[in-house]
């Protein structure tokens, strides 16, 4: 009997599973997403001279609003229209949800090897590679919906993927290049003093990566694949009930994962703190620090919603290929220079 319990506990704190499901994984992502959507609605309301969600829980300032929305979605009818490709229609969003959280298994949240999910030397490249998987399934879901608006949304998503991925990867790699390592642990450790955050030493790459996060996760002003006034709800037009909740969830989880990577690469990860031995001091605290940093980055993305309108698809692609890719390359060059001069040596 005790053997089984031990096994279960071991399984739960087995780093890959723990990361995927609990700490920066699904559960944390859900909490962060609930907070971020609430924050998004409340800040937008504040900028717009309103109150925002309130009466559901006056003492918490309407914090339960998202829980009510999710519960409502969970119990609504799931409509699967007859004209859709059923298998893909149902399968694609679920796959996208799972794949959107997968990159965290390659992101170490501490420098103690015992708590590494999967010890490897190229964790930066692996995690960036994994992020490219889930958008394909959004395109698939759009195609399977058999709806013109969804199709246009899916096409836009595909265009945007091809544009932002290059920026994302170039700017991510330039963070590693400066440190001369593609191991996230090395990158974070190199940024230990405050002034050595790559955000400060290489702001060009940070800007490019921030822009690519905006593009990839439909943040304003690049909210193009779901431009509601043009193509209704984009790829998710036909989804209802829980299926739509899954879609929305995967979009926000994707944003969360990207910002996790951003805070590891550019914001020093668990920087002011040095992990100590032990589970709490060695894993929980640094992980929470990274999550908090990621949440702050997400909050800035949310705030942009209140400030910007959306661009047109051709303008966004034009900006990506003609402005942000040169910027990302300039960041790479700067990183090369820093590596040559030995800033992080």
């Amino acid at each position, binding site marked *: 009997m005790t053997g089984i319990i031990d096994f279960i506990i071991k399984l739960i704190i087995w780093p890959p599973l723990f990361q995927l499901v609990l700490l920066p994984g699904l559960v944390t992502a859900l909490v962060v997403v609930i907070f971020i959507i609430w924050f998004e609605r409340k800040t937008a309301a504040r900028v717009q001279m309103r109150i925002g969600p309130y009466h559901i829980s006056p003492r918490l300032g309407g914090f339960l609003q998202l829980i009510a929305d999710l519960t409502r979605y969970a119990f609504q009818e799931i409509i699967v229209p007859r004209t859709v490709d059923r298998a893909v229609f149902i399968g694609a969003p679920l796959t996208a949800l799972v794949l959107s959280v997968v990159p965290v298994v390659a992101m170490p949240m501490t420098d103690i090897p015992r708590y590494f999910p999967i010890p490897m030397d190229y964790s930066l490249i692996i995690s960036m590679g994994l992020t490219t998987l889930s958008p394909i399934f959004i395109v698939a879901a759009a195609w399977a919906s058999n709806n013109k608006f969804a199709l246009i949304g899916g096409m836009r998503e595909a265009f945007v993927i091809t544009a932002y991925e290059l920026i994302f990867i170039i700017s991510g790699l330039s963070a590693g290049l400066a440190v001369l390592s593609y191991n996230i642990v090395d990158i974070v450790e190199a940024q230990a003093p405050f002034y050595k955050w790559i955000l400060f030493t290489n702001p060009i790459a940070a800007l490019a990566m921030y822009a690519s996060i905006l593009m990839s996760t439909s943040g304003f002003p690049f909210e193009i694949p779901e431009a509601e006034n043009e193509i209704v709800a984009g790829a998710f037009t036909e989804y209802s009930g829980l299926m739509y909740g899954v879609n929305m969830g995967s979009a926000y989880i994707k944003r969360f994962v990207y910002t996790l990577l951003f805070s590891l690469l550019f914001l020093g990860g668990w920087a002011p703190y040095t992990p100590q031995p032990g589970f709490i001091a060695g894993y929980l605290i640094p992980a929470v620090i990274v999550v908090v940093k990621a949440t702050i980055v997400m909050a800035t993305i949310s705030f942009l919603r209140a400030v910007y309108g959306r661009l047109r*698809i051709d303008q966004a692609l034009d900006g990506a290929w003609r402005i942000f890719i040169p910027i990302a390359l300039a960041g790479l060059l700067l990183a090369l220079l820093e590596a040559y001069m030995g800033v992080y040596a």
Partner: protein
Amino acid sequence: MSASPALKDEIKLPGMDLKKIGKDLYEVFIGPQHPGSGHMRIIIRVDGDVIVEADPDLGYVHRTMEKLAEGREFIKVIPLMERMAILDACNITLPYVEAVEKLMDIEPPPRAKYLRVLLCEINRIASHLYGMGIFGVFLGHSTMYMWPFGDREVFVELAEKLTGARLTHTYAVPGGVRRDIPQGFREMAEKAARYMEKKLEDYKRIFLDNPAIQKRLVDVGVISKNLAAKLGIVGPNLRASGIRYDVRIIEPYEAYDEIDFEVPIYEEGDAYARAWIRVMEIKQSLNIIRQVLEKMPQGDPLHEKFWAKAPKLYKTVYETTGRAKLIPLYANLKVPAGRAIARAEAGRGEVIYVVESENKTKPYRVRVVSPSFRNAIVFKYIVPGHRIADLPAIYGSIDYFPPEADR
């Protein structure tokens, strides 16, 4: 696009008849349940992302006002026509009232003229703010939706103070206006004007000078001067194309010839100019409101023909509280036979009424052509050649209001 040919044959839903519309084209129905359109539908044929053909399908809010007007008394037509554009109620019914006055050969007293101008300008500001809000949300700018809508409440409140109703004022009646100016209105209006001037700067900062918005609007939906005249579009859209046409200066009605104001003109004719022109017009309207309150003459708010016949109680109420109720005389108002045409500059452009009477209590024919209906032609001739994403930008920039177009 669809699952399989076999499935296609099996499903026969209404409105799903498949027809071939040309190689590489597909048809998208924008509206009526679509966030990028109001209560109308635009059927667009798209090649990739570029619109090849657009066909506006109006009439989703056609409530048969012209027919119903033939069966109602002259005075009851005013609230009926008001429903056409309830956010611009005084402007949209004023020409009707003027046409009836022309038929009856009466002219409202000068104070009534000023009061009408006052409410017209309040309405114009509210209407422009509404249009700007809709424009903002069409570009995905939710703040630009909320700010003008919040500030519109200031002017709705002003109108409510003046007339007693938020939107449906029925303020101008043949021979004058329904109520006089209430106490404390001047201070309120002055405060509102000062507030609005401050907010216009904020709009400029967050919306008009916003690089993302400029990118979306500059050189989008360009209507050249000649094309604008040919298509017969009206209002701010016409003036954004460089044509100095505003009924307030072309054929000054009411007290507009005694008021000093400018009509902003832009030469570009694109969506960005149309956004700017509304801001500048709000500025001018604030200026007009200030002048009206300054220059307003004393006197009765109603023509003496009606005022003399008003019961004594009405006069006492008016003299003590400044509020005049509608005199029952209007119920069976007989209008001499003939035809009269009157026009006015509503928030969205020129509105024109043709009223024909047969010397009865009901009109023989009321023909109204509203600015939005005349602007609807833009969708057919300007939209093609733009991208799908430009459709909301153009739609928002012409400030199209379907109930007004459909009547």
